[in-house]
């Protein structure tokens, strides 16, 4: 920082300068992140899938996914040189390539929405159970434990039975509600360590309320951890969602990679040697999960040292 900047008449600009510093820190972060090849590889994969998901309706028109519109096609026709059928057809004669592109959409949307939900609940419960000792903190901890052991597949089955249907929203809620306890545990541990530092005591003595202490002092110190952890949660949520799809517990009208795996399995694609129907959805799941994992791990490495040193 140059001295001229420091000696400028003050405070009105204090906030703007602290924003400037924050922006510099952000740039620094991006630059550091860019030096990690694995992380950038993850970002590359993720960008590819995001573009595919966004562009799917433009590249692959609806009718490619309509079983009734593709009656003339062979079932499980092998890949051909025609672009739409580079990966052949599925058991209903639809383009596998088009299904893959469209299937990226629910994976990313549900994965990200459910993870955000988990992040929100997990951070809230984690900080609260770490900050408040006594009855309330203990109750929060028990709640975390209870959700930690709650199995999500039976929960989906029960919810579907109760609601008589399934939808994107239900999937998001179920996955979100079952994915937060890990985050909460992590945030609680970090909160306890932050609370042990003298500046929390200082904040208390300066007259800050519990809410202020949690938001101004604890939250910024757990945020890097939460961000890294959420990225990893996305990977897990997408895997869980694929499991649900494979078990036929997702909306059958919505194309998804899990659902494709389910159809491939039920129609005996493996026995018929239709690898183009069986492998690509699996590989897509692996690629997206890998992308989030690589990004998450890199974020952990890049953000964590700052907890101590900044």
């Amino acid at each position, binding site marked *: *920082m140059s001295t001229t900047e*420091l*000696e400028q*008449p*003050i*405070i009105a600009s*204090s906030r703007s*300068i*602290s924003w400037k*510093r924050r922006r510099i820190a952000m740039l620094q972060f991006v630059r550091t992140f860019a030096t990690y090849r694995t992380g950038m590889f993850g970002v590359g994969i993720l960008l590819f899938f995001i573009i595919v998901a966004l562009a799917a309706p433009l590249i692959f028109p609806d009718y490619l996914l309509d079983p009734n519109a593709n009656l003339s096609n062979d079932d499980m026709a092998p890949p051909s040189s025609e672009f739409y059928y580079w990966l052949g057809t599925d058991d209903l004669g639809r383009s596998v390539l088009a299904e893959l592109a469209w299937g990226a959409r629910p994976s990313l949307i549900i994965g990200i929405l459910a993870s955000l939900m988990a992040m929100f609940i997990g951070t809230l419960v984690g900080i609260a159970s770490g900050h408040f000792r006594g009855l309330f903190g203990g109750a929060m901890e028990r709640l975390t434990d209870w959700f930690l052991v709650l199995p999500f597949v039976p929960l989906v089955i029960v919810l579907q039975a109760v609601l008589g249907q399934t939808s994107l929203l239900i999937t998001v809620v179920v996955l979100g509600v079952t994915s937060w306890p890990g985050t909460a545990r992590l945030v609680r541990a970090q909160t306890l360590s932050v609370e042990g*530092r*003298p*500046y929390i*005591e*200082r*904040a*208390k*003595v*300066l*007259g*800050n*309320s519990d809410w*202020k202490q949690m938001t*101004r*002092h604890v939250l*910024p*110190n757990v945020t890097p951890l939460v961000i890294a952890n959420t990225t990893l949660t996305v990977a897990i949520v997408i895997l869980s969602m694929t499991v649900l799809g494979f078990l036929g517990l997702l909306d059958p009208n919505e194309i998804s990679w899990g659902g494709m795996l389910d159809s491939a399995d039920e129609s005996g694609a493996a026995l018929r040697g239709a690898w183009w129907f069986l492998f690509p959805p699996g590989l897509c799941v692996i690629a997206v999960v890998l992308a989030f994992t690589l990004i998450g791990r890199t974020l952990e490495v890049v953000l964590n040292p700052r907890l*101590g*040193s*900044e």
Partner: protein
Amino acid sequence: MSAAAEESPSTGMVVEVDDLHITFSGREGGTAKAVDGVNLAIRKGEIIALVGESGCGKTTLARTILGLEIPASGEVRFHGEPLEYTGRALKRYRKHVQLVLQDPTGSLNPRHSVYEAVAEGPRTHGMDDEAGRVARALSMAGLRPPERFFLRYPHELSGGQRQRVVIAGALALDPDVIIADEPVSSLDASVRGEILALMLKLREELGLTLLVVTHDLGLAWNIADRIVVMYLGRVVEQGPTEEVLRDPQHPYTRALLSVVPEMHGVEQIVLSGETPDPTNIPSGCRFHPRCQEVRDGVAESAGVLAACSTISPVILPPSIPIGVDATDLSHEAACHLVVPPPST
């Protein structure tokens, strides 16, 4: 309470601690008596050193005066009014009584700039002229020109500068009392003197009252008007610094003083064992199992040996001014050798 409020100007005390007991439940079911009957009165503009080994209850006592611990019995009074433990009352109280901790690095949020760290207090209390307050507090704490420090982050400062920021954070609230817990023990030796000089200056220029919690008798000699020596939850000796350090009465104070490395020519009294356990306080005088006078037979020849292990010495009253000159304070020690037990 109104009666007490009327009384306060006559006593002239800023903070009073009356028969304070603080207990913690230990892990194995026992009860630790961290502070076990302490009286203390702090006058305006005074610098008091609260001295003792770790575990003697001095930090707990300081935290209780700040309202961070709730006493099991007894009370803390501020300008004659008993402390109330509601959120609002405590917040109001803390505008007047502030804290400076040992570790300046840990006391500052690494993500907050110096300006934010110092402005936190005034902002919390909705005080006006925030920027002016921050600038004045920083420059009072010796960080000049203050604007140069506004946007620095703690990791860009030296240890001494960080401690000055912490002090400025307290000063920004215009407090009456600052409680400093080992304010220089984590600083480099050459920086230490400057911070202590700052504390003297703050007393002189702002009329601040300081309670310094420390294990360091040299620090007390450097800045304190009065010393209060604690052992295992009780005050064992108190009085003006010169008197206590030049002519210590209690065997424990003598032992503490003898291990100060600068005390050449004084024979070291190395006490056996470590600070005993506050969950298991010895009967009689709580110091008797480690007391060199008991060990060397002095207590026996004085005829108080039986009392040492059975009769608890009197709990010292708050040290009070003698005569008209308010600087004259009584020098007392809770020891049977000094004040013979009633039975003899």
